[in-house]
Each structure stands twice: as structure tokens, then as C-alpha cells.
């Protein structure tokens, strides 16, 4: 006979344990609430000073006595930069996801999925460094200069001296950075389509592509849109690489018109100007205010994405491993 000795413990411990667990969960709620409160109180000065003009104004002047702050150029810079990055990365990511879920030979599947994951693991600042020292010169010599020579200053989107530190470079590197996000989630979503759907399409005499179009794509549509929006969320909030590559101008000059023009995003102006802003000043409040706007935009994007993806893929990081 085996005897089992185990302390039963008092029932109170179970309760305490439960409350600690609930407390840890509540910490998450508290974080979000505190975040909103702190960003609001931290930026209240600038809202009082500028009013709604903080959203629509283009001035950016931190000289004491003539202080004026408008976030409009950076909101535009963020949207344009993220938008171009999405245009490049979405088709690329869907291609990768389709290859991994539908076409890849078994031998290639795991290593390739791993490569995609590793792309996501490379820190942002290293993308920035690589973009600054390596990629920039290629973009400048091979793409920007020829395009500029071909279309000249008359063409709006190719106007300006191609310098390499501009919207185009920043958004291409940003695109490379969000490919893994969109690709790995899309892959999960495509894999989640039951094989019986594909078989039904093949039975009708479909080619691989037709089976994908007929059985996989409609089935996973909402999840794929969610993956794209999640990628957009990443693109909007991405800071370091963009800060290092976008050229960093302020004020109305940062409103994007040309691809070859230096600009500024909400994240990059916060990173760039933070060191210059004195504590307690309006300048700092303006930067925190931009943080609040960025938070709201990112929050909305993520909530939408969450509802579209959550149905299909339960957990991103956990699922990628499994």
C-alpha cells in the first residue's frame, strides 16, 4: 500500500489565492485606466492652450513666448507612411502566408515559418540602423534618383531632391517590419480552413489557385482583414526605425506630398523632441498629447482587429509556436 500524505491546508488559502489571481488580472484593467488618465493629465496644458487646433493646426514652434503646437502634419505623416507600408506589405504577406499554408513542400514549411518569425524578432532599432547605413544608399541610387530624373520636379510625388532619408525609405523598411505580423497571422487563419473545404473545390476540378480562391479565401476573409488591421496597428505605432529614416522635419513642411520628402510621424516626433522639452512646459505637454492621439488611434485599430481575428485565431504568439 502506498500512503499519500498531503497537507490539505485551510480553505482560506484557496480564497486568498483566488483573490491574488483576480488582482493580477485586474492589474491589466488598472494599467489601461491609468494610461488614459496619465496621458490626459500630462497633456491637459496643450489642449487648454490650443483647443481643437491641436488636431488641425500645422505650426510647431517651441520658442518661448511664441509657442504654438499643431499635430496635424504628424498625424498625416503617420497615416501616409503606414499606408504606403501597407500597400507594399499586404500583398507580400498574403503571398507568404499562401505559400506556407497551401503550396510549400513539407521540408520547407517549418524553416520558412521560422524565418518569418525571426524577421519579427529583429529589434526595430536594428532595422533602423540597417536602413540608415545600408538600405538608404540603394534606395537613393537605384530608385529615387532614376525616378526623379525621369519625372522631374513637376511630378508632385517624385519632387524634391532624393536624399534617401524620406517617406519612401521609411515606409519600405516599415513594410519589411510588418510583413511577419501580417504573414504569420494570415498563415494561421488559412491553415484553420478545414481541408474538407479544399477537397470540395478540388473535387469540382479546381486548380490550386482556384481551390484557394473558392474554398480558402471566402472562408478566411474576415480573419485576413483582421490580420491587415493588426499590421496597420503595428505600422502606426512603430517608432525607432521610422525615426531614424524619415528625415524628421517639423511644422507644415512635414505634411507629406512627395515620396522623396522628409516628414515626421507622431511616434518619431515624440522620440526626437523629447530630450529638448523641459519638464512642466507646454512643449512636453504637446508631445504627451500626441501620445494620447496615437494611443486612441492604435486602440481603435486594435479593437477592430481583435474582433475580426479573435474568432479565427485564439492567440497569436501562442498559436505561432504551436
Amino acid at each position, binding site marked *: 500500500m502506498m500512503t499519500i500524505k498531503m497537507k490539505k491546508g485551510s480553505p482560506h488559502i484557496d480564497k486568498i489565492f483566488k483573490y491574488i489571481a483576480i488582482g493580477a488580472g485586474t492589474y491589466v484593467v488598472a494599467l489601461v485606466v491609468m494610461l488614459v488618465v496619465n496621458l490626459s493629465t500630462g497633456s491637459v496644458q496643450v489642449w487648454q492652450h490650443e483647443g481643437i487646433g491641436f488636431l488641425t493646426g500645422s505650426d510647431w514652434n517651441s520658442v518661448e513666448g511664441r509657442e504654438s503646437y499643431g499635430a496635424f502634419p504628424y498625424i498625416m505623416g503617420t497615416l501616409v507612411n503606414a499606408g504606403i507600408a501597407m500597400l507594399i506589405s499586404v500583398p507580400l504577406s498574403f503571398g507568404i502566408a499562401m505559400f506556407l499554408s497551401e503550396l510549400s513542400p513539407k521540408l520547407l514549411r517549418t524553416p520558412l515559418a521560422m524565418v518569418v518569425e525571426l524577421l519579427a524578432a529583429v529589434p526595430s532599432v536594428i532595422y533602423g540602423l540597417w536602413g540608415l547605413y545600408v538600405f538608404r544608399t540603394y534606395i537613393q541610387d537605384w530608385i529615387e534618383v532614376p525616378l526623379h530624373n525621369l519625372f522631374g520636379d513637376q511630378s508632385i510625388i517624385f519632387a524634391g531632391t532624393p536624399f534617401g532619408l524620406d517617406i519612401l525609405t521609411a515606409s519600405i523598411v516599415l513594410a519589411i517590419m510588418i510583413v511577419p505580423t501580417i504573414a504569420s497571422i494570415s498563415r494561421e487563419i488559412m491553415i484553420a480552413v478545414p481541408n*474538407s473545404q479544399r477537397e*470540395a473545390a478540388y*473535387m*469540382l476540378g479546381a486548380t490550386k489557385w482556384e481551390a484557394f480562391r*473558392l474554398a480558402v479565401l*471566402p*472562408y478566411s*476573409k474576415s480573419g485576413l482583414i483582421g490580420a491587415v488591421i493588426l499590421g496597420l496597428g503595428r505600422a502606426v505605432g512603430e517608432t525607432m526605425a521610422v525615426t531614424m529614416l524619415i528625415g524628421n522635419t517639423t511644422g507644415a513642411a512635414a505634411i507629406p506630398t512627395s515620396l522623396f520628402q522628409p516628414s515626421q510621424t507622431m511616434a518619431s516626433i515624440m522620440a526626437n523632441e523629447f530630450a529638448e522639452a523641459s519638464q512642466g512646459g507646454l512643449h512636453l505637454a504637446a508631445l504627451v498629447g500626441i501620445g494620447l492621439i496615437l494611443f486612441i488611434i492604435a486602440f481603435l485599430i486594435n479593437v477592430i482587429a481583435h474582433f475580426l481575428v479573435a474568432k479565427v485565431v485564439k492567440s497569436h504568439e501562442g498559436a505561432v509556436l504551436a
Partner: protein
Amino acid sequence: MMEIITKIPTKGNANEEIKYKLVAENISASYDGIVTVKNVSMKFRDRAVTALIGPSGCGKTTFLRCLNRMHELTKNATLTGKVLLDGEDLYSNKVDPMINRRKIGMVFQKPNPFPTMSIYDNVACGLRLNGVKDKNILDEVVEGCLKMASLWNEVKGDLKKPGMSLSGGQQQRLCIARALAIQPEVLLMDEPASALDPIATQKIEEMIQELKKEYTIIIVTHNMQQATRVSDYTGFMYLGDLVEFGETKQIFENPRNEITAKYVQGQFG
């Protein structure tokens, strides 16, 4: 040693020339390294129902999936042998599998309509895929196929409704209509009634009787009563081997093999 009886029986007038629509020669198949079909050869008669019976795991479904090159879509699948459709090898390197799959319709064990498509589109999508554009023809075929699948009366009012809104039995009949729409010559059915209630099952069995006037039908079933009711020929598979193949009546009433006898008497399964 097990005696494998693969002599193909004749039915009716012995002088009548027998036409074999589909011929499987020496099919061996495996997946994940497990051999599930061992060197099976069978000939399927045109305009007749052939049933494949056997205990679960005997390889009957795998064998069926070899007949329209569906097996090779399975993970880690291997396959050797030949399948001749009207004398033409399906597994010839020269032809893409898609070319012959459309001649061989298939109904799966679980109903799998396309969830985002309407009832109409579920049936019509195979036609559109194969280049039918004429709206009148599409309407005509959809109606005809739904009638053949004895679903028309239940859905004729709401063809625009999603296919997933139907009950399980209706969904399965919708899948049959979808398979019929591409005008196949052979119809493969993998336990089409296993997930259905008795009434839906009866409808499908009646439909098979009707369809057999036009098609070569091969049906996998674990239900022996069903095999006796619907089929003209029966093949009994056990552990990947084709143990016995003959007229359904003979297999059930006068089996030549000991294992077949035990199986049809319900001593194992």
C-alpha cells in the same frame, strides 16, 4: 494464406458485353508511413453501384480517395498503382489531376458546403469554374441537380439563402447536387449517410437507386444493410487487403471467404 478472390462476376445475360468504367490496378497507398491499402485491384461496372465494406481502418476510404487522386492531397501520402478511367490512366504524368477530377464527382463523409455561398452558388460554382457562363443553363442545371438530389422541393423558394442554413441531411444532399452539377461520369460516395438520421438516409438511398441509371457509383459504407439495399456489387476489405469482391447477393448470402462470412454475419466489425 488468405485467398483473394477478385474474379469479376457477371450479371444478367452472360453474352452481354460488360463495360467497366473505372479500373484500379495494384493500388497501394499509405500516409504517415502507415500502409492502408495493399495492392488492391478492382473493376467498376458502368451504371451499377459498387459498395466497399469492411471494419473501420481497413483502408476503404483511402482506396476510394485514390480513385480521383484526392489521396495525394493528404499529408505524407504515398501511392503506387494505376487507375484507368475509360482506359486512360489518371496517374499518368502527362495530365494534371484537375483534368480528371471533374469527371469523377465525390461526396464526403461529412457535409462540406461552401459556407459563404448561397444554396444556388454552391451548386453553380463548379459549373462556373468549368466555364459555363449562360445564365439559363446555370439555372437549368441547378434546378435539375437539386431535383436529382431530392432537395429541390425543400429549397426552391430560397435559393439565395446560405448553404449553411440547411439541416445536416439537407447539406449532404446539397453536396450531392454540387457533385452532380459538373456532370461527372463516376460518383464516389464516402459513407454519405453516416452523419444523417434514418429519414435523410432513406432519401439518399432512394436517390442512389435513381442515379445509378446514369452513373457509375462507388459507395463506401460501414452499414451492411445499406450495402445490401443499394449496391449491385460489393467488395470486402480487411486490413488493407481486398478479401472478396462479387455480386452483393453472393457476398452476403454465400461468401467464399471465412473472414468475409464472419464479417457479414456481424461477428466482428
